[in-house]
């Protein structure tokens, strides 16, 4: 995993509640066995105008925030409660990353999306509702508000607007992100503990030891 320490850049305000992962990447783009190629389909239904007849190339919707020139290449997304709710598709994180995002700030996240983000070196920042409000206001006033998101100090700041907030993240995830740790390799360092637990567990509940290949 690529380490995440700090991100500085323009923030895109996406003033919507409950942005679900079907909006982030619609299901019809999930028929892939690869991890790449999702960026162009990020927010597909909002980003492009409804398709005309004949299957022409999609036309960007000028009313959608992400399509504005001033936000091109912005690495930080600011949004409302419950971002990433719904489906467990990790493709949602991949699509955001492949579009150039490294951070998303919201008051709350869907639990699975939050976990998926951490596994990909993509930082979900939880800030209180009031802080998110203030950031939205600052973003509206500025043409393209610059933010600094620092995982080391666990802060989000907008120097031009004089705003600065601290955020919480659990120590384990923070450590993994800062060091870019491969968490499978990390867990496998505890293989002996897993094996010992497994032996005890399957002895205590022997019906769990059944091999599903046995009758299928």
């Amino acid at each position: 995993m690529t380490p995440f320490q700090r991100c500085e850049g323009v923030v895109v305000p996406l003033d919507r509640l409950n942005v679900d992962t079907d909006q982030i990447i619609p299901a019809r783009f999930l028929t892939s066995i690869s991890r790449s190629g999702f960026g162009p389909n990020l927010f597909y239904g909002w980003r492009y105008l409804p398709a005309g007849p004949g299957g022409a190339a999609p036309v960007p919707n000028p009313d959608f925030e992400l399509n504005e020139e001033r936000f091109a290449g912005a690495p930080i997304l600011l949004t409302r409660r419950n971002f990433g709710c719904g489906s467990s598709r990790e493709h949602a994180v991949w699509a955001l990353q492949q579009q150039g995002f490294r951070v998303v700030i919201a008051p709350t996240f869907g639990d699975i999306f939050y976990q998926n983000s951490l596994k990909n070196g993509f930082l979900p920042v939880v800030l209180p509702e009031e802080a998110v409000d203030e950031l939205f206001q600052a973003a509206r006033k500025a043409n393209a508000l610059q933010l600094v998101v620092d995982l080391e100090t666990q802060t989000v700041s907008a120097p031009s607007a004089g705003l600065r907030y601290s955020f919480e993240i659990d120590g384990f995830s923070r450590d993994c992100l800062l060091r870019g740790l491969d968490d499978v390799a990390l867990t496998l360092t505890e293989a002996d503990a897993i094996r010992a637990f497994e032996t005890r567990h399957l002895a205590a509940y022997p019906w769990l030891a059944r091999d599903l290949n046995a009758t299928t």
Partner: protein
Amino acid sequence: MTKTLFDKLWDTHAFADREDGTSLLYIDRHLINEVSSPQAFEALDLAGRRAWRPGSSFAIADHNVPTTERGFGIADPLSRAQVDALERNCRNQGIAFLGMADMRQGIEHVVGPEQGVTLPGMTVVCGDSHTSTHGAFACLAFGIGTSEVEHVLATQSLRIRRMKSMRVNVQGELAPGLVAKDIVLALIGQIGTSGATGHAIEYAGPAIRALSMEGRMTICNMSIEAGARAGLMAVDDTTIAYLRGRPHAPEGELWDQAVAYWRTLKSDEGAVFDREITLDASRITPQVTWGTSPEMVTGIDGLVPDPDREPDAARRESYRRALTYMGLAPNTPIRAIQLDKVFIGSCTNARIEDLRAAAAVVRGRRKADSISLAMVVPGSGLVKEQAEREGLDRDFVAAGFEWRDSGCSMCMAMNADRLSPGERCASTSNRNFEGRQGAGGRTHLVSPAMAAAAAIAGHFVDVRELGPGEQR
């Protein structure tokens, strides 16, 4: 010390605790589908790793399989590649795989319990958010992403933090004609789609105890739509009766030993939850969603809300967006909403009881001419077979419905089953998000009986007023 059901499940699976508050959680059962697994298997192969305990995993292609003319295979080359990859990866790693041609194939959250792959007291994970379904069997069951699929394959565990606990007490008795779907939609309407974020919800109370396993699965299934990580229900006679004789359930002495343990899987008297909520089942009416989030729901007698009367600015804006997308005017009576299509299926509502309820409404009737397509997609090949033994397929076909093969189908429109832009659908599935059933499609979530009634009338009606179809 008193424990909640969640505490019991956590404590029997968590080990290697760290000071940062995380533990390793041992995973008993891993269900695998074609959409969220290929990148996980690829990563495993690239690192030269093998599945830790392949016999604990169970794979089924369900998300993008066709529901018609299966003999011709999968027409879409990308979908076909994904299903082929699943079969190949499972063969490589020694994991049980149910292919499209297998009679037992179906939606993973229907097949797991049906085959006894899901058993009480287990931790169950799957790269699918509706894994919460299995909590109806007192399992700690939750959806994970592809990286965690890889992690579970490689280590049989996840390093996670303990969830918070919430109990939803459903008091009273449902009125006749109302079902589990109405309970869970009413709950989501009350607490919202982030109402249970970070929590495992335990459902309790007389209205839950009165439900069949099918109904219980419907409720646990939609826990994720309330934001919860997991849904849970205690073991009782209904649970045990459902599991007896299932192909992968234990037998003989092992069955007795298991049942004795399973019966302890309930919250202790006096156990303390982080949050408790009470719902009165007797006050619930048939639920219909009107918007683009499952929390945008009301009763059949309700009206589409007026965004201008919503005090919270962010919600007001989301209501406006929803009504524009849904093509609905404020204050429209729910009963006045005309439909184009009807979908009966999904991991929420495609079990035998669901099909029986819908068939009982359509029997001897005909779908409205304005309904261009009404389709029934059974939750598994075995559900389909059972329904055909009972003649339900003939009831549906005589009423003008299409009778399909099993899969996720138009719940999420990854296969050919999807809405066209602007089409409006009464659906027994779980999400009414924008474009969920096809780009530009408009979804209203309802129970199977309500969907069937809407197909007959061409618009939403109270199934209790329409009454049952012909008796048999």
